[in-house]
């Protein structure tokens, strides 16, 4: 079941004591860069990258550390964006409550789909998650509150805690930064917790984990639900940024994209999904005018990534530096 090439995941001492210094430095530099970023690039683009970085990191928790390939993560990302958009527009909730309700809805959906999907393993698991995501897509297409082909448009950005207006892109930027960076740190904490260690053990050798007395299915369901919730947090935040929830976010292409981001950056690494998300979103941004060629290029990256580059960018870097990244 081991999905990773296992080069990046060498156990290191000091893990239990807290974050390794290298990771602390990277996170600090990243945060400093992100605080400065909106003064140099278009904030909406930067916010999009951050949302996808959180999405990919949430997906990586499941695939890279849990060894479970979900091919339907768009269901939680897109599902949450619908719920958050509906909450903000129809219920008139404040941004933070809208985002939280989106994430909570994704968590519930993840729990339900996860509890069914973990009944099959490997390839079947991937197909089952994909099929359920397609079901969510059809519901989004036909249900009334989702607005069908139009989606939910012109979602109000509202006032944070009912006090701070987020209509300005820079104000919203710092809200998005807080949510996504916080989400990524939370995921980091999970990976490096005792729970995360058991996850890795299950990924490496499931029968052995069972024989050691771990309730493997419970762990799988918890990590699936956590991953879906965090993917939902990302999707809900994105709906606030673009003031829109649409079918694109629940489409199977979106599920494929998050797999691609994770594969490209490096499965089972901490920083890989963030790098992968940055690259793919930037690429889509620059190649948007080429239409269907974007699909072809993504396909080529998939094929090359699987054939030649399975460790991903950060995976290779980690091997060179002999550090876990």
């Amino acid at each position, binding site marked *: *079941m*081991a*999905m990773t090439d296992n080069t990046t995941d060498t156990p290191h001492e000091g893990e239990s004591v807290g974050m390794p210094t290298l990771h602390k430095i990277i996170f600090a530099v990243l945060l400093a860069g992100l605080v400065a970023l909106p003064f140099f690039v278009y904030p909406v683009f930067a916010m999009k990258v951050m949302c996808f970085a959180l999405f990919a990191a949430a997906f990586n928790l499941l695939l890279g550390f849990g060894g479970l*390939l979900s*091919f339907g993560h768009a269901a939680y990302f897109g599902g949450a964006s619908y719920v958050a958009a509906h909450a903000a527009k129809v219920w008139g909730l404040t941004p933070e409550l809208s985002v939280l309700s989106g994430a909570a809805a994704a968590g519930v959906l993840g729990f339900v789909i996860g509890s*069914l*999907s973990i*009944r*099959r*393993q*490997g*390839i*079947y698991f*991937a*197909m*089952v998650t*994909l*099929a*359920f995501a*397609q*079901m969510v897509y*059809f*519901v989004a*297409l*036909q249900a009334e509150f989702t607005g069908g082909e139009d989606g939910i448009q012109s979602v109000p950005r509202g006032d944070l805690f009912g006090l701070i207006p987020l209509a300005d892109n820079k104000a919203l930027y710092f809200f998005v930064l807080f949510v996504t960076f916080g989400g990524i740190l939370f995921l980091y904490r999970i990976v490096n917790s005792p729970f995360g260690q058991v996850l890795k053990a299950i990924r490496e050798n499931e029968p052995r984990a069972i024989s050691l007395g771990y309730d493997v299915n419970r762990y799988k369901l918890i990590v699936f639900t956590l991953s879906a919730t965090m993917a939902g947090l990302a999707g809900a935040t994105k709906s606030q940024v673009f003031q829109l929830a649409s079918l694109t976010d629940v489409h*199977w292409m979106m599920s*494929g994209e998050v*797999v691609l981001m994770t*594969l490209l950056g490096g499965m089972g690494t901490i920083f890989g999904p963030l790098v992968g998300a940055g690259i793919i979103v930037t690429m889509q941004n620059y190649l948007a005018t080429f*239409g*269907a*060629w*974007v*699909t*072809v290029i*993504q*396909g*080529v*990256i*998939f*094929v090359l*990534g*699987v*054939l030649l580059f*399975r460790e991903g960018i950060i995976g290779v870097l980690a091997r060179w530096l002999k550090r876990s990244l």
Partner: protein
Amino acid sequence: MFELLGISPPVLLGQLLLGLINGSFYAVLSLGLAVIFGLLNIINFAHGALYMAGAFVAWMLLNYLGIGYWPALIVAPLIVGAFGILLERTMLSRLYHLDHLYSLLLTFGLALIIQGLFRNYYGISGLPYQIPPALSGGQNLGFMFLPNYRAWVVVASVIVCFGTWFVIEKTRLGAYLRAATENPTLVGAFGVNVPLMVMLTYGFGVALAGFAGVLAAPIYSVNPNMGEQLIIVVFAVVVIGGMGSIMGAILTGYLLGIVEGLTRVFYPEGSAVVIFVIMAIVLLIKPEGLFGRPA
């Protein structure tokens, strides 16, 4: 007696026929997936794209070379199958020693490439493909009108499905194939060229997808997106049936097509999701699938 439910027989039978036709495609496609899975243990995500490619090859044969429907029914699957063999030799075969999820990701990438290329060159509006003259028109059965071509789709799919079943379950070649499914190393030790068999099996499974594409061309417009929704439904069909048995894949395909057709009569809103709901129920009751062997 149909009137009792407030639904007239022509409507019911019409939807049943439509369901049976969809079921024919599900059956041929899930059969191809099952044949490939049996020997290679991989799920071919490119199956939907290759089904679409089959329809396009038929269209190209007609429009560029003047080759009609009947020859295309043989030639197009051969071309698609040959393309599949090329993919197997150059890419897939490099991944057999790895986790099978990598093959899934590879074939997903291939599906994106194939679909994207066709979308670039042919747009998404769809191209028309005429029903062959010998099969145009239809029969008036008294209670309903049966278009000849649609009847042919069902008959052709049944012939191909049961032909494949016969070869795999009842012939010497099929016996080698089944033996290699159980233990490829041992079969290789007996002097059977297993890599060759793997290559041809993938080619054959893919050719089945191409064949389904040609069958579909006159019914649905030839369109780069025609395979993408279908393949996900076929995945659900495969999960429901379980890929352990060839006959299981075939029967589940037809059965679910009919169930979908019936749903369209009694609860139209649910017809898009009914197969997924059935999949959820099967996962609860018999996770290994209706015809599957417990893992």
